[in-house]
């Protein structure tokens, strides 16, 4: 089983619905994830696609245990982390990292870029922090001088590079990228995606790439998981999914994307 990073079985997760909470007693729960089963092999780039309310972000956050599932099982490299406490998770945390959707809100506005990247390294007690920060900045193609800047002084694409640098500086085995290009312009979108592709190759990363947009993940992902209302409706190799989408929802999703082409028939 060493070639599988994540082994997920019948994963279920629900949140209390506070808007329908009775005066007394617990709030009714809304099921977000309804029994998901899949694996992420080592070195794979998995695309997780779905609309709003599909549960894709919740799934991502459950994988890196920012939230605790109700039931089912998540094995990370053979270790059951489903209900692991924060203390036990801490040594594992270095091995799975996350890049967030909105770099502005995921980078502490009051800290400089250098400090943002160094923080996790210091926390994990690593040596040679300065060198590692410089290396991480080099790898994401940012000038080293950016270490002394604040996030709000950077452009959107640059901020997202900082987010990537922070994640890879720890040399994790697995990275979760949650809608990381949806807030970017097309020109920087392509740059960030290309950067990620290079890093995956160079560092031998395993990546889960969450997106609502099928068109940005075709190049990057080897396999795609389509979520619809908390269920996996399709789990297929990228080429197959684009050639012959089997689930009706995938077909609908594909046909709804407006291609930059006035001749596309769009019914």
């Amino acid at each position: 089983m060493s070639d599988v990073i994540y082994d997920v079985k019948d994963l279920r997760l629900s949140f209390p619905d506070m808007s329908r909470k009775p005066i007394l007693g617990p709030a009714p729960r809304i099921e977000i994830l309804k029994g998901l089963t899949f694996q992420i092999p080592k070195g794979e780039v998995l695309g997780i696609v779905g609309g709003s309310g599909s549960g894709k972000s919740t799934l991502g956050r459950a994988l890196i245990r920012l939230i605790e599932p109700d039931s089912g099982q998540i094995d990370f490299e053979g270790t059951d982390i489903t209900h692991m406490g924060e203390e036990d998770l801490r040594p594992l945390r270095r091995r799975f990292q996350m890049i967030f959707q909105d770099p502005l809100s995921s980078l502490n506005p009051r800290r400089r870029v250098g400090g943002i990247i160094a923080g996790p390294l210091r926390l994990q007690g690593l040596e040679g922090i300065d060198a590692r920060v410089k290396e991480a900045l080099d790898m994401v193609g940012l000038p080293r001088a950016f270490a002394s800047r604040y996030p709000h002084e950077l452009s959107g694409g640059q901020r997202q590079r900082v987010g990537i640098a922070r994640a890879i500086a720890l040399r994790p085995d697995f990275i979760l990228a949650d809608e990381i290009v949806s807030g970017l312009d097309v020109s920087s979108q392509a740059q960030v995606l290309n950067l990620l592709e290079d890093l995956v190759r160079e560092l031998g990363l395993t990546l889960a790439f969450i997106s609502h947009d099928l068109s940005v993940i075709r190049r990057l992902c080897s396999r795609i998981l389509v979520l619809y209302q908390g269920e996996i409706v399709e789990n297929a190799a990228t080429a197959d999914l684009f050639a012959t989408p089997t689930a009706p929802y995938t077909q609908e999703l594909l046909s709804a994307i407006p291609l930059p082409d006035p001749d596309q028939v769009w019914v």
Partner: protein
Amino acid sequence: MSFLSIQDLTVRLRGKTPILRRVSIDVAAGEVRALVGESGAGKSMIGKSVLGTLPQALGITGGRIILDGEDLEQLSPRARRQRIGAKVALIPQDPLTALNPSRRVGPQITNRLVDILGWSRKAAEARALELLNEVHIPDPARVMRAYPHELSGGMRQRILIASAFAAEPKLIIADEPTTALDVTVQKQILRLIAEMQQRHGTALLFVTHDLGVVSKVCQTMSVLYSGMVVEDTKVRDFFASPGHPYSAALLVATPKYTDPDGSLTPVPEAVIRAVEEEVAAFDRRQEGAA
């Protein structure tokens, strides 16, 4: 004869930094024109200049906005508001914040008709019902009494569209109207906007960053970079052969899922540098003239 004619419009931040650089755009009656550009290109500021809703720090420092034959800048603020209220409407970007959460939907559609255009409340309500029907909302009477949070994002955007068309404006400014929506909902909303536009013959100024969307709903387009119009063309001509290196690069950078290799081509540095230089040269000319 254009319904809206923007001529050499210059908008500056605190009278200094240019945000729009002598922008000229014409929209004929019934025309659908796209304003395309990346963030910071100033595309939303054009619509805001027309509507008179520019942020406080920004001001129009030159040029004219001629709406239906009248120069808006020559009118008193009151007359300007009255003209805009009668002839122009807005479909906003974010359907979640564009409706007041503490008021029912119905009055939010009818108030404009009653307060600004002097309709009777009964007539306004009838009109609102009719419009909600037109935008394919099931059980419109119930939706009129609902609060915004009880409705989905797509539903709310439909309501905003109905509300925009309510007073039969001659021009609608749609500011990234589908950016906040799921792609499947986006499709429905775009089709709805196109359908309503055709039925009512309204001119549409469609602000977007998505060339895919442009190719589906627009007839003409202006591509902006750094507050400057770099290309003004017909949509079909643009997609056949873009006329400016920057807009050409933008088209190439737009991802196409039909491309087997995923087409991830960033806008080349050289193209950005060239268009930046174009902007700088323009600024130098302006300073020389002043």
